[in-house]
C-alpha cells in the first residue's frame, strides 16, 4: 500500500517502471463513491428547497441525431468492455480477457476516429469548445449555456483526454503482442514500455472515475432527461428553456 507506481528490475538489474499500482483501483473506487455520495447528499438537501423540474411533455427539440446516439452507445459499450476485461483479471476473475480487450479497444479507436472526423466537419464543433465564458457559468446562476453546459463540456474533454491516452497507449501495447495483423515486435525498451503501461493504467483509473461520475449524473433525477435524449434523441422545449440559452443554441424541432 502506498505505492502508486510499480517498479521492477529490468534484465540488467536496473529499476524501471512496470506500471500503475493496481491498489489504486480501490482508492479510486472509494474516492469516487465518497465524492458522489457527498454530491448526492448535498443535492438531496438542496432538493428540499427548489423542486421545479421542467416538464418533459409538449414540443420537442432535437438534442442528438440518431447517428450520434449510436456513436455514444457503441463508445460506451466498448469502454465498458475495456474496463471490465481489463480490470476483472486484476481483481481475480479469471477468463481469457485479452482478445476481447483488444477487440473492444479497436472498436473504440475506430469509433473515436470517426467521431473526431464527424465532429470536425459535420457537426457543430464550436458547441463543444470550452471558452472563458463557460468558466464563468457555474458561478453565475443567470447564465444559461448553449447546447452543452460547462459540466458537460468539461466531462467531454476530460473523457476525450483520458480516452485518447488510453487509446494511444493501448495501441502501443497492442503492438507488443501477437495479433492477427502482425507478430509482436520488441519495438520499445522496457523503460519506455513501462511508462506506456503506467499511462495506460493511470488513464484507466481516470476513466473508471469519469465513467462512474458520468453514470451518476446520467441517473440524477434533474439530468435524467439528458439520458432520455441519448436514447430517444429529443428533449422537451421546457427542458431546453430551463437549462439552455436559446440564443446560444437553437435546435430544430423534433418530429
Amino acid at each position, binding site marked *: 500500500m502506498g505505492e502508486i507506481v510499480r517498479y521492477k528490475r529490468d*534484465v*540488467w*538489474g536496473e529499476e524501471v517502471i512496470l506500471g500503475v499500482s493496481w491498489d489504486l483501483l480501490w482508492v479510486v473506487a472509494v474516492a469516487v463513491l465518497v465524492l458522489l455520495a457527498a454530491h448526492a447528499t448535498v443535492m438531496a438537501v438542496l432538493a428540499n428547497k427548489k423542486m421545479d423540474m421542467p416538464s418533459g411533455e409538449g414540443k420537442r427539440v432535437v438534442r442528438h441525431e440518431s447517428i450520434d446516439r449510436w456513436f455514444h452507445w457503441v463508445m460506451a459499450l466498448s469502454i465498458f468492455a475495456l474496463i471490465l476485461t481489463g480490470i476483472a483479471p486484476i481483481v481475480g476473475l479469471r477468463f481469457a480477457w485479452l482478445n476481447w480487450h483488444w477487440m473492444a479497444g479497436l472498436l473504440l479507436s475506430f469509433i473515436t476516429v470517426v467521431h473526431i472526423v464527424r465532429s470536425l466537419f459535420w457537426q457543430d464543433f464550436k458547441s463543444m469548445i470550452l471558452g472563458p465564458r463557460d468558466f464563468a457559468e457555474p458561478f453565475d446562476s443567470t447564465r444559461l449555456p448553449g447546447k452543452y453546459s460547462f459540466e458537460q463540456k468539461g466531462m467531454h474533454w476530460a473523457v476525450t483526454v483520458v480516452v485518447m491516452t488510453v487509446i494511444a497507449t493501448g495501441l502501443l501495447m497492442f503492438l507488443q503482442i501477437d495479433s492477427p495483423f502482425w507478430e509482436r515486435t*520488441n519495438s520499445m525498451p522496457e523503460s519506455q514500455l513501462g511508462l506506456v503501461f503506467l499511462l495506460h493504467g493511470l488513464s484507466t483509473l481516470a476513466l473508471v472515475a469519469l465513467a462512474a461520475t458520468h453514470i451518476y449524473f446520467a441517473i440524477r433525477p434533474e439530468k435524467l432527461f439528458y439520458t432520455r435524449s441519448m436514447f430517444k434523441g429529443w428533449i422537451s422545449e421546457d427542458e431546453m428553456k430551463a437549462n439552455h440559452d436559446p440564443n446560444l443554441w437553437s435546435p430544430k424541432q423534433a418530429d
Partner: protein
Amino acid sequence: MAYMHIGKDFVPPDVNGKVTGRIKYAEDYTREGMVYARLLTSPIPHARVVNIDATEALAMDGVFGLLTADDVYPDGEPQSTGLKVLTNEPTLVGEPILALAAIDEKTAETAISKISVTFERLPFVLDPLDSLAEGGPDAYNGGNTYVFRQGFASEKWSADQVASFRAGNEPTAEPQQTFAYGDLDAALGESAFVYETAFTTAGYPHQSMEPRSAMAYWENGKLYLHGTSQSLSALADGMASIVGVPQEDFVFINEATGGGFGQRARANSIPSMAIPAKMSQKINRPVMMRVTRDEETAIGGARQGFQGWIKCGFKADGTMAAADLYIISDNGGKGGGGDAYSAADCISILYQTEAVRFRGTSIGSNTGHRGAQRGPGQNQIAAIIAPILDKAAEELGIDRLKIRQINTPQNGDVGGARQIPFTSAYMPEALKMGAEQFNLEERMARSRKRNGTKVTGIGIGQGYHDAGRSGMDGIVRLTADGRLKVHNGVGNLGTYSYASTSRAAAEVLQMPWEHVDIVTGRTDRHLPITSPQDGSNSIFTNTRTNYGAAMDLLNKMKELAAMELGGDAADYDFADERVFKTAAPSEGMTFAEIAQKGIALGGKFTGASDLPEELNDFTKISVNRLAGESLMGIYHDTPHNNNPPGFTVTFTEIEMDIETGKYDIVEMVTIGDCGTVVHPQGLKNQLVGGAVWGIGLAGYERHLYDPQNGLPASTGYWQSKIPTMMDTPAKIKTGWVDLPDPENPVGARGIGEPAMGAVAAALASAISDSLDGHLFSAAPVTADMIINHVAGVTSEAVPLAQNNFRG
C-alpha cells in the same frame, strides 16, 4: 620389453580417498575464524563500472569487507582479453566485479544485494560475425580482437562480405592469421571431387564438476591457498605473481581437482582464486570463496566456437589433395585460444593433405570466458571433416575405411603447418585394429538400412592432438630408509598421470611400488615444475622428467657405491634395491645404505650443489629446501625433436529414429595410438571419458546467449545439455596399439584429447550416414535439426549463428 610397472594397472594412492570421501577438494577445508566471500558479478554483457556504493552493505552486521578491482589493480587493470581477478570493465555477464566477505554466505549475498553499482552500458555483441560487420559493436574496449604483443584492434568486413559468408560462400576478407603449404590451386585442379561448405561448431562451457572455489589465509607472511588446478606446480608458478606474493611465500594446496579439461592448467585462466587470497590479506581472516555453478559457467571457460568455410579436394584415388580452411573463432568476452589454427593443423596431420591453406580471424563476443578445452580446434573440426570424407568416398566409389587408410598418417610421415615429422605414428595399425574389433565389414552391410522408423548409421572417426612436450624438471629422492620419493607437481584431476608418470622413476630403479611415495598435493612439499597437464602432454613430458631424475639418482648411487666399494661407477649394476659390482654381485650396498652415504657426503648428492644449469626457478626453490635431507636425483629435461602425436580412431553404429531425431549408439569401439601403454585403466578412462565428451560435442552441448540482452541461457548442467549416462553407450569398447614411441624413455605419448575428437567425428559420420549422407556441417547436430531435415522444414535460425541455436 618387459616392464616392472609400465603397462600394469595399479591402485593410485588417491583412489581410496575418492571412494571414501576423505580426499579434500578446495571447498572441503575449513579454518578457525574462516569467513565467506561471495561475488557481485556483472549483470551487463559489456559495461564500465562508474561507481560502487557499498555503504549500506558494509554497515551490516557480520560483514567484514569488500574487495574491488581497484584493490587488486591499484595501477589499473592489465590491458588484455585475459580474465581479470576482478574488473571494472566487464565484457560478459557474470564477470566478477567485487567480492564481499561476511560471517556466512546468506549474509554475504544479502549484503551484496544492497550494494549499488552504477554501470555505464556499452554496446554488446554475441555473434562474432555481427561484430565483424562494418558498424557492428566490439566486444572489448578498444576493439573486437587482440593481437599478440600489439594490443586491441578492430577487424571489420563490409556488410556484403559478412552476408556472403553467412550465405555459405568463401570469405573474401583478409584474415588475421594464415599458414599454407603446397600448391593449393594445382591440388584442387587435380581433384576429382571437391567439396565446399560453410560450417559452424558451438563453443560450450567446460562445466567441471568442482566449481573453482578457493580458500586462503595468511600465516607468518606466507599465503596458503587451497585451490584447484590441473597441475599444482605449473599453476602455483603463475598464481604467485597474480596475487603478488613472492614464490617463496606462496603455498598452494591442491590434493584433488574436480575436473579441468583445459581451464585450470594455468593461473591466468583461473585468476578468481586470487580473490580469497587478496581478501584474506585485506581483512586478516581466512576466507572461503565458494563459486556457484552459475558463476562457474560464466568464468569457468568455454570452447571457442567456429564460423568457418572449408573446401576439400580429393583425387580420384581418394587422396586428399587440398584443404582450404577459413575460420572465424569466437574469442568470447574474455580469454581466447588458437583453436582455428589447430583445426587446420589437425586436418593436415590426420589426412596428410598435400596442400593446405589456413586463414583465420579471432573475434570477441560478450559471452562466456574462452580458453583451451579438450582438443581445442582439433576436436571441433573432427566433427566437420569426417562426413566430408564419407562424401568423398561415396562420390569416388571408395570404401569409407579405405579412404581413411589412403590418407592416414604413419611412421615417417610429417604433418601440420610446419610439416614436422612424427616421433612415431601407428594410425594404420589403429584403423585396422578398430575395424576388426568393430567388425566393420559386417556392420557396414547394415549402413543406411531402414527398420521401421529407424535407420542404421555407421561412422568412422579419427582424432589427433600433439601430445607431448619437454623442458620440465624432475626431482626424486632416496631417503635414509631406502624409500623412493617422487616429487610430482602434476595435478590430480583424474588422469592419475601424477601417479603413472611417477612409475617411470620406479621403473628405472626397479623399485617395488610399495617402497615408492609420490610427493604431491601442496607446493610446500617441494615440487619441481612439471607439465601443466594440458594438451595431453603429461604422460610424455613427465615420464621424461621422472625417468631422467631417476637416472640421475641411479648414476649417483653407482658413483657412491664406487666411492665406497672401489672401482668405477660403470662397473656397477643394480637389482632388488641394491647396487652391486657387476663382476661380483655379492659386493654391494642396499639403496638405504647408499642413501645414508649420500646424505653424509652432501653436496651434489643431496641437491645442495651442482644443480643442472637450466633448472627452472620454481624447481630451484624446492630443491634448495630439500637439499641435504636425502639422496637426490634432479633432472632438467632437454627439448625433444619431433611431434609426438596422440591418435585415436573410433567406429560406431547408431540407430537413428528419423521421426524423433533421436539415436541410440548401438556399438562404439575406440582405439588409441599413444605409444607404450603406461597405465591401462587410466588409458581406458581417457578413452571412455573422451568418448562422452565427443558425444557431447557432436550431439548435445550448447552455449546460448540471449541476443536481446546478452544474458546466458545455458548456465547449469541441464541447460548446457551435458551428456548423461543414458545418452552415452552402456558399453564403450576400447583398445590400443601399444607400440613404443622412440622419443619417450618408456615409449609413451598422450591420449586424452584425441579420444574425444575421434568419437565426435565418428558420431557426425554416423548421423550423416543414417540420413543418406546428408551433411549438416555443424556441431552439435541436435534432435530438432534432424527432425527439421527429415521433414524438410526450414529453420529460422540465423545462418552460421554463434552462441545461439543453429539451423
